[in-house]
Each structure stands twice: as C-alpha cells, then as structure tokens.
C-alpha cells in the first residue's frame, strides 16, 4: 500500500498512479467508479474520466470527479489532439469493438498512455482451453463467453505485435500474478495481467 492512495488500489491501478507525476493532465478511459481518478486527484492531477455505464458515471460525479458518459469506440474522437499528458485504458481495451483504433486515439489525445489488460495466454487459461476445451472462466475473466463484455481477448504477445505493427513503443511494462508483481521473463506464459506504458516511437 502506498501513502499517496491509502484506499488499497487494485495493483495495476497502483502502478499507474505511482508513475504519473502530480499536476499531470490525465484521461482515464473506462474509469469505472472512479477509483483511480480519485487517487490521481488526491495527488494533485487534473484527472478526468470517460465511462460507459451511467450508474458508474453518477457515482463518480457524486464523489466530485469530472466524468463523461461515453463509449471509447465512438467518443474519443471528440477529445482534441494532445489535450492530456496521459491517457489510460485500464481493463478497457478488450471490451472495445476496435481496440486498434482506440489505441490510435489514445496516443493522439496524449503523448503517453497506460494500457492494462488481462493476458489470455496465461498458463491457466491455456490449460483450461487445452484440457477442458471450453472458454476459460477465471478470476480475471470471470464471465462466461456469451455474456462477457470482453469481446476482444488478447495476449501479451498479441499486444506487442500490435505495437510493433503500429509504431508504438513500450516504455515500460509491469506484470501481475495473483495480485502481485511478477517477473518479466516468460510473461506471456506466467502473467495474468499486464500494464504497458506506451508512446509513439
């Protein structure tokens, strides 16, 4: 736990909050109930959110945060070029219709972005598919295939390939297993969850 955000942030959110300097302008795309926005605001950032679920938006505004109800697939177009220092996609990428276009928008709106997503190539997911032959239901992917909002599952290797294809640089990457930081080696096999800090090359 970090003194700057004592509310015990989810580990991927804590990494993101720790690596954004006070005073930065931030857009959190898919900000949920505003957990990360609140932590960023507390450390003096100008943090705003975009969120698709109206109940979550109402909860955010109710706690004094600036959040727009909208859809990452369609509403990012309304944000001017370079209007923030960081744009964040935490657990949002895999729910969008066109993740590649969302990433492009992310790095149009901000020079640097954080992208956090569950890794579909984690060994437990692989085993489940290999042995059971069924779409896996795990802690990070907790909903059955027919009702999951995660319509574009991806792996760490997939994300690296997309970055290479689109001229996007990974400045840093963090990996998590069982809610704790895990090693970089063989991350596509051992990590349940990844956070990338990306920028244009």
């Amino acid at each position, binding site marked *: 736990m970090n003194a700057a955000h004592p509310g015990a942030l989810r580990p991927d959110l804590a990494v993101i909050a720790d690596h954004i300097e006070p005073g930065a302008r931030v857009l959190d795309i898919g900000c949920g109930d505003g957990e990360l926005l609140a932590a960023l605001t507390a450390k003096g950032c100008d943090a705003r959110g975009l969120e698709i679920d109206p109940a979550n938006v*109402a909860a955010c505004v109710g706690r004094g945060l600036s959040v*727009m109800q909208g859809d990452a697939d369609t509403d990012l177009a309304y944000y001017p070029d370079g209007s923030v220092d960081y744009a964040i996609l935490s657990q949002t990428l895999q729910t969008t219709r066109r993740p590649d276009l969302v990433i492009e928008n992310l790095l149009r709106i901000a020079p640097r972005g954080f992208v956090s997503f569950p890794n579909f190539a984690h060994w437990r997911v692989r085993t489940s598919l290999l042995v059971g032959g069924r779409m896996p239901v795990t802690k990070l992917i907790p909903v059955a295939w027919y009702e999951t909002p995660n319509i574009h599952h991806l792996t760490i290797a997939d994300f690296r390939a997309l970055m290479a294809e689109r001229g996007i640089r990974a400045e840093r990457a963090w990996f998590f297993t069982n809610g704790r930081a895990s090693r970089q080696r063989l991350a596509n096999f051992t990590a349940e969850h990844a956070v990338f800090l990306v920028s244009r090359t």
Partner: protein
Amino acid sequence: MATHAEPSTSGHVLDLPQPLPLDSGRSLAGVRVAYETYGTLNADKSNAILICHALTGDQHVASPHPITGKPGWWIRMVGPGLPIDTDRYFIICANVIGSCMGSSGPASMADDGRPYGMRFPVITIRDMVRAQIALVDALGIDKLHAVVGGSMGGMQVLSLAANFGDRLNAALVIASTSRHSAQNIAFHEVGRQAIMADPAWANGEYYADGVDDPRKVGPEAGLAVARMAAHITYLSEQGLTEKFGRRLQDRDAKTFGFDADFQVESYLRYQGLSFTDRFDANSYLYITRAMDYFDLAEEHGGKLADAFAGTKARFCLVSFDTDWLYPTSESRTIAHALNAAGLPVSFVELSAPYGHDSFLLDVPELDRVVEGFLR
C-alpha cells in the same frame, strides 16, 4: 416523499438603476427583478448559488407559491440537508424578465401608466441573464459558487457561462439544450397561435382597468390549449401510458361525444385551466420566443466550443433517457463542445420514466449527482 423543514426565505424586489441593454438593440428602462433568497451569504460571499427557473417557473423554488399556495417547485432538491443545501449555500432565485411573478414583463406598467402588452420588447435568454447578473452585482457577489438550472434554466446557465464566464465557478445544466430545434420551435408556435387565435387576446391588450392581477383576465382558452400542447412534450409516452393508458374518466363506457372521456383528456384540461390562474398569456408569448431565439453557437460565430472560451468553470450536464423535448444528444453535443474547449465537464444520462419533467421529480441518482457536483 420525505418531508423536510422548509427553508426560511426572504422575498425581495430589485429596481435596476440603469436601463438594461437588450439583444434586439433596444433597451429597457425601469427594470424590476423579483427574487427569493434562502440560507445565509457567508462573509467572503463565496457560497452563493444562482438557480435559474424554467419557462413557467418562478422564484419560489423552495417556498410556497403566493397565488396557488402549492409548495416550491424544487423542494425535493433545495432545503436544509438537501442536495442544494440551504444550511451550506446562499440560494438566489429570480423571476426572469418577461415573466409575470414580479419581474418586469408585458403586464408591467410602461411610462404612460398603461401595461406594456405587446409594446414590451422581445427579449432573449441572454437578456434574462443580463438581469440575473445585475442582481448578482447588486448583491455584491463577485463569483457565484455555482449556477444551476433545468430546461430553460439550463439555457440561462449556459448563456451565463458563455457571456459572464468569470462570474461562476461551476455550471450545472439539467435536461437542456444549446439551441432550440425546429421541433422545439414548432411546438412553441402551436402554443403561441392558440393564444393569439383566442379573440380575448385582443392583440395583447386584454389588461382591464381595475383588475389588479393580469392572470385574472385575457385569453384563458388559448393559454390553456398552449399549456396542454406543451405539457405533452414534458412527459414521456411511457409515463402517459403508465399513468392513464386508455382508462376512462369517471364513467364505464365511451359517451360518443366530446366530453373528456379519457383520463388523459381530463388531466390535460385540468393542467391547462389551472395554468391560466397563475400565468399571463403575453408572458408565455415572450418567454417562448426567447427560447426559440436561443442558439448559443450562433451567438459565438457558429462554433459551440468557442462560446466557452472565456470561462474556467466546471460543468455538469445531465439528461434523461425518456426526455424527447431536449434529448440526450443535445446534452452530449454541449459536453463535447466543453471538452473541446478543455474545460472540466461531467455528463450523464440518467434513467427516469417521466420524460423532460424528470428533473423536477423523484430521481435519486440526480440528487447524488447534484450534491456531489456542487460540493
């Protein structure tokens, strides 16, 4: 609804010392602004919230209406311990100019000692806001903590932020729009034509000698029809179906006549008639005209984002999913413009069954948004 202690109020009248310049190029001398205040202005005058009322609203936001005796129009929102907390904030609500509840309007006396009638100048939303700012000036308030309004009140909030951007810290716009659409103008024109087609309208010169209250005379049938047509636009189809369906009014069978067979007819007739007791027909003409003329982007070179270049205020826009008068797309357009202007903006579409009128009714999520945004 839970009953709350009614906030104590003071009714006031401000006579503007200077003529008010108007968008039409004319100016209006001897302007009077009637307003109510609730709560206490703090020492550094930083806790004032201006509430802007809607078309047929008035300054009695949280205290009984002096004519109908009905409770204030937003008592569920404004009061001690409520989202717009009168224990914490100093609330100002003024009757808009053009109206008939004490502020200057067509029923006011002109210099010749006769009511203006149609000689009253056509006013705009921005003219209403100029009067609001004159009041804020007179109260010695440099910067409002927030300006809040629903429907036409929301238009005033937007206009105030666009034209007097350094006079507010926060703007809360509920169920509103940045411009009147062709459909909005069309419904208003039906209402105006109903009034003007009533022979009792008499070109607006229906104010009789010896009648102290303009609401007691005039084109009541026309005004009632105008209200009936408008009232439909404030409700949702779902709301009307749930409330009335095709149920008959105090009868078992259709009469094969033109009485109010259906409950919905009876309800609308009542809404129309009771409205004429509290509203002046000429005021209805003038205020609907002001709303029709409202186009905030047009006032600022055609680009809505440019309207907000002169403010640093925080904004919050709220729409309702069943509001077809000022649908969510209107609020989203404003939110996108504010975003493009780089201003901190929140926007949410709340779910409520009541149509446009949802902003006045029991929508708990609205309470949460209002309270959180103002804090």
